[in-house]
């Protein structure tokens, strides 16, 4: 009986209002247009409500197209000590995601991966105070 209550409680403990309720991503990006992009980071806009990664993607003909990839709010990363200097312009990233419905070079980045296969951000499981950079 106890177990049943706990099991039922587990599912219902999850708060309804999670991230996904904020913003209907599927109205901005197309589930029928999955893509993988590999390119060089030229800019990371650390802005809200979503950050945007600008990726220069080389085409077979040698030209380059700039893609804008939507990611998450940077505020939690900043809380964990990530700054604009943490992610280097020039980094090679592979991004798996979905293309925008407006047919521009935009996508949402489901996964951000470095060349060695590591994920771009690894959130820490505890929240130590970030070591701030001393002001010059």
């Amino acid at each position, binding site marked *: 009986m106890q177990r049943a*209550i706990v099991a039922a409680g587990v599912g219902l403990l999850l*708060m309804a209002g999670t991230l*996904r309720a904020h913003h209907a991503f*599927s109205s901005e990006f197309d589930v029928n247009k999955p893509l993988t992009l590999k390119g060089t980071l030229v800019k990371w806009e650390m802005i809200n409500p979503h950050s945007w990664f600008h990726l220069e993607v080389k085409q077979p003909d040698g030209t380059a197209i700039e893609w804008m990839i939507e990611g*998450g709010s*940077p505020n939690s990363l900043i809380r964990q000590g990530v700054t604009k200097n943490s992610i280097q312009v020039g980094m090679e990233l592979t991004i798996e995601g979905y293309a925008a419905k407006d047919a521009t070079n935009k996508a949402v980045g489901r996964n951000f991966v470095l060349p060695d296969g590591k994920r771009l951000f690894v*959130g820490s*499981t505890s929240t130590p105070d970030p070591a701030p950079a001393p002001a010059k």
Partner: protein
Amino acid sequence: MRHRFIASLGLPLAAVVVAVMASPRVAGQTAGPAKPAPAKPAATKKYTVPRTPDGQPDFQGFWTNSTYVPLERPDNVQKAFYTDQEFEVAVKAAAAREAEQTEPGTVADVHYDFSQFGLDRSQSAFVKNLRTSLIVDPPNGKMPPLTAEGQKRAADRAAERRRMGATTDAVQNMPIGTRCLIMAGSGPPMMSAGYNSNYQIVQSANYVMILVEMIHDARIIPLGGGAPLPDSMRQWMGDSRGHWEGDTLVIETTNFNGKNPFRGSSDRMRVTERLTRTDANVLSYQFTIDDPATWTAPWTAEAPMTRSVGPIFEHACHEGNYGVANTLAGARLEEKKAAAAAAAKKGAN
């Protein structure tokens, strides 16, 4: 490549949670059946709240109300508190749900992996709260019944939403958070935002400022009197006035404009909040909703806060809101394509 950040689930809960037991200060609240409330951590030593230089209780710093506890008690749960063990099991499962693999190629998959941004609750401080609901009064952990007017207003609002059309028809049809007008949980009352649910409190001699992280809403609460706004003046966050009752900050808010209703409230809602620092890392937060136009009785919830990490980076939402333009542009393009396809089909017939 789709491997989830499962390591976060094995985290020792003690690393990120702060124990919050039954608040000793809730007025009129019962713990339900005869089971004793969990032991209060302050039972053996009383916490002495530090003072600001002005001699007021010091609530300053960064706090979060991030929690897994729902507002209302789940239907199949009768008791008011889980055991420690039940809580740990439930939180692990909830964290797993947040980090779970989504089925590739599904609508649920069309989203950035927010665990990579530290946005899932298990990766930041959250409150260890054994309650089965935030609502402590009524004792069944649920909101009181709606009045007839409350039911009608809910029906009218739903009808208005249908009349307005699809959310992608125009920006005004989108949720207020998506429009960067206000995050619904900013209230008051202040409810967990789901992520970035942080607050910064700064106190001066005559004001308490509570900065809500998302969309940088600063609640500036004057202490000790001052004329209320006239009834004709209404604001999204209402009009708040505060005073101290012993070591508890009491904030009363009226004059809502009704554009961010709280669980169906009217613009005549009156919110009374009570904040008490019960421990170095715990800010007890209790709110009472008094809205006879909507509910048959006032109701009270406790949503305690625990220490969070500063600083709070600027949440300039409207300024970076590419998403609204992208969504509208995409919808217009899809309509054009659908219209062209229909015209082509017609022409072919």
